[in-house]
């Protein structure tokens, strides 16, 4: 049992997958800070509304102000770029994680807490733990992001029943969302008899079944990921809620290592480079050894 769990937690993954995942995650951070947690910029003007969440209170973190928000944004952007460009990636990664963590706490400390950032925050803290060569360390980091993605789905299905009861799938939950922030397409869908009722059940069941993603492999796994991508595309089309910070973390389920490295494909011609070189053959990638 312990052996099986050990193998599952540390199932070797090509380090290349982490490299690609890093690029996705760190390049996404500035976009998130401008658009999705962009309320932090606005909170500079509404200082009286600061209601810090527990972690922010424990750390005595001050609320948003111009003197804080601009430098914090700059630090996270610089650290993210450094991590992508592999300049001291470990230190840069932790700086980005802590800085963005503070930013996210600020975004959630004005009366409204979102839950689409769990996997992103987990990713930011586990990515710097992977060194240049350890496929097992890469495996653990990938597993953590995967678990965070699944936890966000599964625990939200639990929360729906805990807080909303069985009225959640049977009631007018989606009509509520469409009335508040619906699109033309959403209004159209709401007019189709029982479309919203069926959707509510499909989502509840899919979220409940999401732990399967952790155990599927190959095509069934990619089909599962595709299903959830479709689900997020639908909620965006219907109620303009995209969950992008969470969606990008779905990439941890995909064989990102098959995306050829530009540096290596230049060196070896256009041939796609799928396999990870054995330990000791990393001399051609000096940057990945740093940190």
């Amino acid at each position, binding site marked *: 049992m312990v052996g099986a769990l050990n193998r599952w937690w540390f199932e070797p993954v090509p380090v290349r997958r982490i490299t690609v995942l890093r690029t996705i995650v760190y390049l996404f951070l500035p976009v998130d800070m401008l658009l999705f947690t962009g309320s932090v910029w606005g909170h500079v003007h509404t200082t009286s509304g600061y209601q810090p*969440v527990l972690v922010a209170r424990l750390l005595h973190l001050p609320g948003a102000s111009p003197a804080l928000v601009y430098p914090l944004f700059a630090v996270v952007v610089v650290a993210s770029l450094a991590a992508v460009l592999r300049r001291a990636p470990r230190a840069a990664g932790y700086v980005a994680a802590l800085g963005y963590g503070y930013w996210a*706490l600020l975004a959630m400390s004005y*009366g409204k807490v979102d839950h689409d950032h769990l996997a992103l925050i987990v990713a930011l803290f586990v990515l710097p733990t992977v060194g240049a060569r*350890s496929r*097992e360390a890469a495996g653990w980091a990938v597993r953590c992001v995967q678990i965070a993605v699944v936890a966000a789905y599964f625990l939200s299905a639990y929360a729906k029943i805990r807080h*909303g009861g069985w*009225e959640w799938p049977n009631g007018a*939950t989606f009509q509520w*969302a469409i009335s508040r922030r619906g699109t033309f397409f959403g209004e159209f869908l*709401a007019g189709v008899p029982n479309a919203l009722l069926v959707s509510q059940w499909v989502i509840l069941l899919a979220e409940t079944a999401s732990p399967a993603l952790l155990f599927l492999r190959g095509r069934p796994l990619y089909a599962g990921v595709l299903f959830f991508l479709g689900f997020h595309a639908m909620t965006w089309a219907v109620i303009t809620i995209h969950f992008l910070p969470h969606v990008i973390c779905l990439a941890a389920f995909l064989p990102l290592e098959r995306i050829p490295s530009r540096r290596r494909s230049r060196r070896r011609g256009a041939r796609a480079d799928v396999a990870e070189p054995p330990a000791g053959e990393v001399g051609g990638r000096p940057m990945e050894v740093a940190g």
Partner: protein
Amino acid sequence: MELSAGARAWRVIVSGMVLAVLLYGTVAGGDDLFPFGPMVQYAFSVPPDGEIRSLHLQSETASGGRTEIPIEPYYVGVRRAELETQLTRYERDPSLLQGLADTYSRLRPQDPRPIRLRLVTRVITLKDRRPVSTRDDERVSWSVR
């Protein structure tokens, strides 16, 4: 390369602890525990014959025009859901609307300045999960200085 026993141990312990706090937050905690709180976004329900409430900010300008100002960070510095959570604070102290007006003028200087702001709750009544009627209930109003 294999991870050492120590490198494995701290990883298992840390992930176990994070999962434990997350499970605690899910079962017993609230939003205050962010990022370990329950995933309660959209985790409430609306009865098929219930009501849908949403907050709207209405503006009256000197020329007599009436418009609706989106309650979004890039308009008034706050998100609608945040203002809804803090609505009782605004009802107790309507002068807080002055802050929204000032932020709005600073962020959108090209828009006409409001002389009066109103926060209204739009109530949509449902029958069999579909809207049948709509009304606006005024919650707070403020003459902008």
